[in-house]
């Protein structure tokens, strides 16, 4: 994969495949000025600061932003090791070490959160990962470019809709009282079905929602990989008498294997991330046992009940596991001969 250039794409998944540019960034930083040259470095920095004042001025708002809104909260996670009370402040609050973590690990919610997060993530991995590949293969086989464009235009669109809209559409279609499906069932003389408050089907429901929203958009990266396959290989296969299906199986799929592998590994890396907004919006009392994931739990316990230290500890635990997984996934990707992301 070569780097996706500049503003061409701004979606995170697509950006994750911009292997080249980020790798260079990381390489650049490893070469820090050595201790012998550090005096020289400071001197040239001072003169650079004087010479290009306005350049540093230009960087100032961004720098202040990153420090205030990205790094101050990183310092703020320390309250996970305190009994934080807002009126006492961080300096006045008592330090308790890992007490909140210990309490969380011993709590029955811990297993529940892990189970729900893993279940939803793995279902996602199974469906939400395979659907875009299959759809991309199908799109690639279409002869009519106009038809292909129409289908693409329609299936990319939900990517840009908010989760509130998606949840709204879900309620209005599947809701027990107001949903279209149930109104039709009733008109046909059949009993209404409870799609939204059934704990047995909740995981499937949120997975299908995610597929509906992002499945089409996910095809882009695979279509790009397919477009990169040398057409001569197909010609040779045709001369040898291979049909469409054999060409897909023996040329297209092996041709995009690298992309599939790296995306799969990256997905494994953020297995702890189950979208807060989606789960929060689909959450209801009947499905709470299967719907609570880390972020919704942090919101409920932290924001709604005001247990700041405890919920920060839960959030920190999730972030650290997530960080480790991403770094491991990246290492794995590199070992598989891909460029890696960081």
């Amino acid at each position, binding site marked *: 994969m070569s780097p996706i*250039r500049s503003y*061409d794409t701004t979606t995170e998944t697509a950006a994750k495949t911009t292997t080249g540019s980020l790798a260079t960034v990381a390489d650049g930083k490893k070469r820090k000025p050595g201790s012998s040259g550090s005096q020289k470095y400071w001197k040239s920095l001072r003169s650079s600061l004087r010479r290009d004042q306005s350049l540093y001025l230009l960087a100032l708002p961004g720098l202040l932003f*990153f420090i205030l809104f990205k790094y101050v909260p*990183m310092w*703020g996670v320390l309250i996970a090791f305190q009994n934080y009370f807002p009126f006492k402040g961080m300096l006045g609050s008592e330090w308790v070490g890992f007490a909140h973590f210990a309490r969380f690990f011993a709590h029955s919610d811990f297993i529940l959160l892990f189970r729900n997060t893993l279940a939803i993530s793995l279902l996602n991995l199974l469906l939400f990962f395979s659907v875009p590949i299959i759809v991309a293969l199908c799109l690639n086989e279409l002869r009519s470019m106009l038809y292909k464009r129409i289908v693409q235009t329609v299936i*990319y669109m939900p990517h*840009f809709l908010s989760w509130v809209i998606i949840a709204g559409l879900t309620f*209005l279609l599947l809701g027990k009282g107001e949903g279209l499906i149930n109104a039709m069932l009733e008109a046909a003389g059949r009993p209404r079905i409870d799609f939204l408050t059934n704990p047995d089907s909740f995981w499937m429901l949120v997975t299908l929602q995610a597929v509906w929203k992002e499945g089409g958009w996910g095809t882009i990266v695979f279509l790009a990989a397919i477009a990169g396959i040398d057409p001569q290989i197909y010609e040779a296969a045709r001369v040898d008498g291979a*049909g469409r299906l054999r060409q897909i199986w023996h040329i297209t799929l092996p041709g995009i294997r690298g992309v599939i592998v790296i995306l799969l590994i990256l997905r494994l890396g953020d297995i702890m991330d189950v979208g807060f907004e989606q789960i929060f919006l689909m959450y209801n009392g009947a499905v709470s046992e299967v719907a609570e994931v880390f972020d919704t739990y942090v919101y409920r316990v932290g924001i709604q009940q005001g247990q700041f230290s405890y919920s920060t500890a839960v959030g920190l635990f999730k*972030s650290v596991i997530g960080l480790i997984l991403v770094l491991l996934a990246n290492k794995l990707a590199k070992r598989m001969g891909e460029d890696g992301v960081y």
Partner: protein
Amino acid sequence: MKQRFGDRVFQAANGLFLGLLALVTFFPIYYVFIVSFTDPSEFLLKKFVLFPQKWSLEAYEYLLSTKAFPRSLGNSAFLAVIGTLCSLAVSSSFAYALSQRRMLLRRPLMLLVLLTILFSPGIIPHYLLVRELGLINSLWSLILPSLANGWTVLLMKGFFDSLPAELGESAAMDGSGAVRTWLTIILPLSLPALAAFGLFFAVGYWNQFFSALLYLNDAAQWPIQVLLQNMLKSASTIDLTIPGQHVEAPPSEMLKMASVIIAITPILLVYPFLQKHFAKGAMVGSVKG
């Protein structure tokens, strides 16, 4: 060209499958759109409508004459316009400075940006910070914390890297400082790219839900997404009556559908541009070289 029979069957099945897929994606929006424009009495009578006999704007007229709904639309429009402009200013100035070779601090600063992508401290520290800053219940709580993010700065820097370095150098030789070069030479040249980034920011601001849920308790400040979420709940707390009048409201389902359509409309209006910039760009970019 001779086609084998098997190939033709395959083509037909494939076309049909993708057509069905597009239909499944399109249908929910079609249905909500149709019902929102149906005459309320027809909807109440039939319970579901796939194509109305009598069209009506009643649901829309009702929503727009309430107090809460137009107010939320205004809040969201404010976020999308002002937020986007602020985000573009902060992100692009920072990214431009990072792309300059004369900027000796660019490596440590890039590391600073990169680390924020790798690790996030979670919801609560962000919430406490916004609270300490006194931004709770202010629309700025949705703008200031999302002025920039690591990915966008990296992508923007990539874009500025691709501009010829001579542009800035010749301006500097003529005695122009970096701020002036950025304002008068770089930004005008980057307008297409900035428009693409701006669209991306604007959609983000319009769709913002979680931060609004966290930081805004006061219904008067709610953007459209939070209002919509509240309307969708069975126990809605939002007051959707028309002040000073006793007008009978259309069925709540229809109000919900009309709100969904209103909230989708700005996205649909910019969608052709979004698709052009992001979908096509993503493909071209990743195949090249």
